[in-house]
């Protein structure tokens, strides 16, 4: 399912547009793809460039400007639920690719093939508008088994995912837009407090995914924060750390509230802060 724009004014929905072309223009004049017949709208006001599952909005030097989510923009990478404002008109951008795919299809690597004959390097030194316009992907319906120079330029990249009908692939097998690397947020805060030696009483909060303890070259252990708890693992040194008087092996050991860790001759206590 292609992404779409929902045009409305004063909360009344006027029309819905599917973003099914590489480049669509918004403006007052009738040749635009999205025509808004209002004097506050420039003849050619803005352009939308869609590359597979991503859409970019660009202000075409309009008189009254373009805002997205209340902020004036020149060029903007549209995200699901963004609201574009042109004069009194609002356009909501919907790109809910996630609901259209099954988990198994997520993030499958696919091949873009090309190039089409006579490819030229994209002008990387051009102004923003020029390079913006050049990076368009031509969706060619038949597999282009052309010369394989191996040097693909975005401007000429033809798309033909292996064994699939082009176009269908683009919409149907979209990778999820999940941001990478969400920290292990589900874990409750914890800390270790040093019980012996010169640093007695010092508390170390386990705020990072990894916290190393000990002396490099002598004995080091690491505490990893994971979604289902905290784990201690031996990293280096002849001696392995002890938890509640028992030496660890090389495997991670889950820590429980008030466990006593002994490492390089120093005792410390692990506990949850909540």
């Amino acid at each position, binding site marked *: 399912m292609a992404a779409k724009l929902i045009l409305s004014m004063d909360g009344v929905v006027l029309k819905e547009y599917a973003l099914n072309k590489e480049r669509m223009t918004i403006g007052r004049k009738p040749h635009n793809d999205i025509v808004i017949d209002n004097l506050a709208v420039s003849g050619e006001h803005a352009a939308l460039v869609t*590359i*597979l*599952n*991503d859409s*970019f909005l660009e202000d075409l030097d309009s008189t009254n400007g373009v805002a997205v989510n209340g902020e004036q923009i020149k060029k903007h*990478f549209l*995200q699901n639920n963004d609201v574009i404002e042109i004069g009194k008109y609002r356009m909501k951008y919907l*790109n809910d*690719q996630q609901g259209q795919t099954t988990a*198994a299809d*997520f*993030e*499958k*690597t*696919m*091949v*873009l*093939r*090309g190039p089409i004959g006579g490819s030229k390097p994209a002008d*990387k030194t051009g102004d*923003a508008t020029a*390079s*913006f316009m*050049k*990076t368009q992907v031509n969706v060619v319906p038949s597999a282009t088994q052309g010369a*394989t*120079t*191996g*040097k*693909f*330029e*975005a*401007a000429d*990249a033809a798309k033909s995912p*292996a*064994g699939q009908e082009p176009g269908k692939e683009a919409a149907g097998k979209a*990778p*999820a*837009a*999940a*941001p*990478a*690397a*969400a920290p*292990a947020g589900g874990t409750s805060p914890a800390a270790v407090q040093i019980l012996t030696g010169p640093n007695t009483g010092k508390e170390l909060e386990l705020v*990072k*995914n*990894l916290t*190393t303890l000990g002396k490099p*070259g002598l004995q*080091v252990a*690491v505490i*990893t924060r*994971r*979604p289902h708890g905290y784990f201690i*693992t*031996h*990293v*280096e040194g002849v001696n392995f750390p002890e938890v509640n008087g028992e030496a660890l092996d*090389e495997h991670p050991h889950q820590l429980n509230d008030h466990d006593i860790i002994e490492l390089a001759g120093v005792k410390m206590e692990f506990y949850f802060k909540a």
Partner: protein
Amino acid sequence: MNVEQALEIVSETNPGMVRSHNEDSVGHEDSCGLAVLADGMGGYNAGEVASGITISVLTTEIRHRLQSASPVEYAGDKDEELGVALLRENVQKANSSIYQAAQSQPQYAGMGTTVVAGLFYDNRVAVAHVGDSRMYRLRGEEFVPVTRDHSLLQEQIDSGMISPEDARRSKNKNLVTRAVGVEAEVEAEVHVYDVQVGDIYLFCSDGLNDMVEDEDIGSTLQMLQANLPLAASQLVQLANDNGGRDNVSVILVKVKGEFAVPRGWLAKLLSWFKK
């Protein structure tokens, strides 16, 4: 020190939390300082067939050639070192094998794979890659990607169309512009870099760098560099804790000492006797 003594190499591969099977393959040939990682694609088991062919072609062919030749010599009419030529030629060889298998067996139609391979010799590393599998380098505090993906997203970043920050939110991830085995010919991108003692090289599939920020990958390596197997399993675990939506594979190579190729008349004499 020879290259086998100078390097410590560990690898780990895991199907992740969502996929039922693993299309990644990893391999290393410690005797000649070679590490190879491939991320296959294609229906049924075609993905792992493609990545498996690539690993076996590169490891066996390169090991075989280097038993009787030195990676620094210029063989025949070549204008590049044997080490570089071997990577280039064997990626092409893997490409032909996969392409032919895909042409002759309908269940393998359209299969392909990415590849990233590093050959360490003479205090340097030659890196060949196709697609979006990467090599990174940790040197001191600095953790940087060395390879640049052959992907639509990378091209958009290069042309200034999208910022590297915005790229993380793109829905066009995982569209590679070059792959091994999908066409009759493929050209691997090959570069040679100087290596320093203490460097750690990470080869990984996109299942790692899509799930874990570069900064977190770097700090994990930094903290756990004394225990390479633990660092490898920790990286895989981090990707899986963050969702593990793809297969995840890593190879870590730690440079423990210098490995210059011996030169001069004595070395020549010795190598002559070995033949």
